[in-house]
């Protein structure tokens, strides 16, 4: 790990200013992804701003009946929160489908959104990777690509976003609240928050330099059945091959997001309207523009079948 200086942030504003004034600085919250990457020198910040003491760890009801989740709410606490379990079961289910108990105790809501891909070529510093070293090439294209993205890919990158939580946030139309270093604030719909790889796969979100996530806000509950179905190589503690996050109403309408298939949580609002017609039609709408490799073509069928299982479960 490279040496770095360390400070404990005294306020959101001070943290955002400190980060904006030093392009080599990073915020650290749970640290479970950042420190892993720093040990491998994939991340090499020269300064860490510890934001754990800022009190952004509360879950509050909003004026319109939604839920504001502080950026530093740990994954365990969010999954166990009474309101989340009752009204946003999809979120609770997605959270406990991810990582291990130890990691969920540290991992935060904001950090979960910002975690980086687990593409093995991103992790292997001996291999070219446009995300790790812009312009060096993509080793996954033409390499072992069974786990990789099938839709929204580019010639520069076919990595997936690893988060389970973000799939639920996407299906639930969450809004990411941020504070910028100039003191201004903005609310970013989750659909706009993560970027597709394009020519710049190393730029993963629309956050500006120093911009600080303060909370993630959920709209008022949608009702319906909340289901998160994750298909993975082990029964526990493994990243998704594909995952389906869905809220399905009694009449068969609903909302659905897919994980393990793209550089961001994959949600096509037009596909939601197809849900009453069944899994085949909905999956076709979701993956219409898919460009799978020979090795991950199976994900196209797997999404349809996993979605079929979700729709069947919702009918029970």
């Amino acid at each position, binding site marked *: 790990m490279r040496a770095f200086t*360390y400070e404990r942030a005294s306020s959101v504003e001070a943290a955002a200013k400190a980060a904006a004034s030093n392009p080599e600085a990073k915020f650290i919250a749970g640290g479970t992804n950042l*420190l892993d990457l720093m040990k491998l020198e994939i991340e090499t910040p020269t300064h860490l701003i510890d934001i*754990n003491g800022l009190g952004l760890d509360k879950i509050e009801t909003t004026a319109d009946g939604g839920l504001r989740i502080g950026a530093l709410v740990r994954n365990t606490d969010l999954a166990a929160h009474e309101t989340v379990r*009752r009204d946003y079961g999809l979120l609770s289910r997605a959270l*406990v489908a991810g990582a291990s*108990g*130890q990691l969920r105790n540290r991992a935060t809501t904001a950090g979960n959104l910002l975690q980086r891909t687990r593409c093995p070529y991103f992790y292997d510093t001996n291999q070219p990777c446009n995300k790790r070293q812009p312009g060096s090439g993509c080793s996954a294209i033409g390499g072992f690509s069974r786990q990789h993205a099938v839709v929204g890919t580019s010639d520069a990158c076919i990595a997936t976003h690893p988060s389970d939580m973000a799939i639920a946030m996407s299906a639930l139309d969450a809004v990411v609240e941020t504070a910028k270093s100039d003191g201004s604030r903005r609310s970013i719909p989750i659909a706009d928050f993560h970027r597709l790889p394009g020519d710049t796969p190393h730029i993963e979100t629309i956050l500006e330099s120093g911009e600080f996530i303060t909370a993630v806000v959920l709209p008022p509950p949608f009702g319906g059945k909340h289901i998160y179905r994750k298909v993975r190589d082990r029964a526990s*503690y493994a990243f998704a091959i594909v995952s389906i996050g869905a809220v399905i109403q009694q009449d068969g309408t609903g909302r659905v997001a897919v994980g393990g298939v793209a550089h961001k949580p994959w949600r096509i609002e037009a596909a939601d309207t197809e849900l009453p017609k069944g899994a085949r039609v909905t999956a076709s709408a979701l993956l219409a523009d898919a460009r799978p490799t020979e090795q991950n073509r199976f994900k196209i069928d797997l999404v349809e079948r996993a979605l079929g299982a979700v729709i069947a479960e919702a009918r029970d």
Partner: protein
Amino acid sequence: MQSPIQLEISRRNLLISSAATIAVTGAATGEAVAQGARTSMQHMSKVSLSVNGESYNLDVDNRTTLLDALREHLHLTGTKKGCDHGQCGACTVIVDGRRINSCLTLAVMHDGDEVITIEGLGQPGALHPLQAAFVKHDGFQCGYCTPGQICSSVAVLEEIKANIPSHVTGDLTTQAAVTPAEIRERMSGNICRCGAYSNIIDAIVEVAGTKA
């Protein structure tokens, strides 16, 4: 560096501490070359924390993980370094009542925190019930993952009691049950390469007072 823990100098301990000194010296030399004059006080921080009920004030390189602080600074070597990337669970300790991977957190991030390691759970002659159950059920072979398994299992039973749900919890709106399936799922962050899993589950299930 403060070192209030008196190590009993047996032949084995002497060999272990010599090896650790060599390893630490080696790393420090390499780092000094790499960092040159930039390695200075600004890359060091003070941190005060409680470990197994004792208070410690440490001066650590910012890079020091909680795991390395426990092992190299406090000589509490019960906590093990397995993968050092949060994948194996050998480094599991309990911080402010929560189990975490001590390899994926910096010591400086734990100012004022209370840490419990395997040494704080119990000692020979006064074992924690889970330590005794692991011995009784032969819940290990080589033993390297065991401190992490035991710290994790202590916290798992507390997590179920605190009604924290897991991936296998059926109804999210009712109290989580203490079942072997729940325990297996919740222990998935602790890997045992000897494959003592069935005996580990037996040990935890016995302490939990549920039927396997």
